[in-house]
């Protein structure tokens, strides 16, 4: 590899790291299964106020695990992460703002209509 390539390869390509062994993946899958079981548990057992936050946290954790291990993001080039995470973050932020605007910050008189808010 000569000088020029060095300067122009921007991604940090971690070629050594190819992810986990099969067993590792199976363990991950088991973890995911357990998390899912907890999620489903919320349906049968009353978690009270904790229900929504715990579901959201579990969801995020599962999401995170799948993209980092199954989808290799953890081991792959950062460029892939940037591409995907940009979309993801944009999606979450923009639609959270939209929902807020539509649901909470709507015109006060709009609420007089009763059924609409």
């Amino acid at each position, binding site marked *: 590899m000569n000088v020029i390539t060095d300067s122009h390869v921007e991604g940090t390509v971690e070629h050594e790291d190819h992810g986990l062994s099969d067993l590792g993946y199976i363990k991950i899958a088991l973890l995911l299964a357990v998390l899912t079981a907890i999620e489903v548990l919320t349906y049968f057992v009353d978690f009270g106020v904790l229900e929504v936050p715990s579901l959201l946290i579990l969801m995020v954790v599962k999401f995170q695990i799948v993209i980092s291990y199954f989808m290799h993001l953890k081991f792959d080039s950062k460029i892939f992460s940037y591409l995907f995470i940009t979309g993801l973050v944009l999606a979450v932020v*923009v639609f959270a703002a939209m929902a807020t605007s539509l649901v909470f910050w709507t015109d006060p008189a709009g609420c007089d209509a009763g059924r609409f808010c």
Partner: protein
Amino acid sequence: MDNATEVNTSQLAYGPTEWDDYDVPPLTTGLSNEKMTMWAFLGSDCLLFAALISTYLLLRNRVGPDTDGSTAAELFDIPFTSVSSFVLLMSSLTMVLAVTSIGRGEIERCKMWLLTTATLGAVFIAGQVYEFTGFYREGLGFTTNISSSAFFTLTGFHGVHVSLGIIMLVTLWSLISRGNIGAERAETVEIIGLYWHFVDIVWIVIFAVVYLIP
């Protein structure tokens, strides 16, 4: 390159270099174009599903003067959906195993895992079809009310994604079987795997946000 005209190339701003020995100039980042394509597409798809999910969340409880029928959420059968969610989740595992096996050159094993993945996906779709017909029988069609339109659209979009994934997996399987794709093209399997996992994580979100959160 054809170096017959080398005579006057010396005065060019950009004459021949060692790089010309490559038929394909090395890619700037060293990453594969196809994989980058898939990641870009998935980033884009995030917004698609975010829009659909927010639409559903916004509309799920809305009623107007003409509304009748129950909302989709009232008909959910959580235990049933939990099972099919679990099936989809496990298909991600089998997909990963397909990728690792082709990486090791174990073609047969890869084929096996691909088929398993496709089958699990098909089971999920079958479950969805069953769920939908159930809803329909209880009087909740696509056009019944606003929550049903939103629900079927969201899950339908996801279902179409899964189905496309199944088609790709089966195609992949048959191509490997025919010997068109070998271990050297493990990346193709990986890329389709990315798509498959994405469909799975979308379902992780849908399952939590649409089904479980009351």
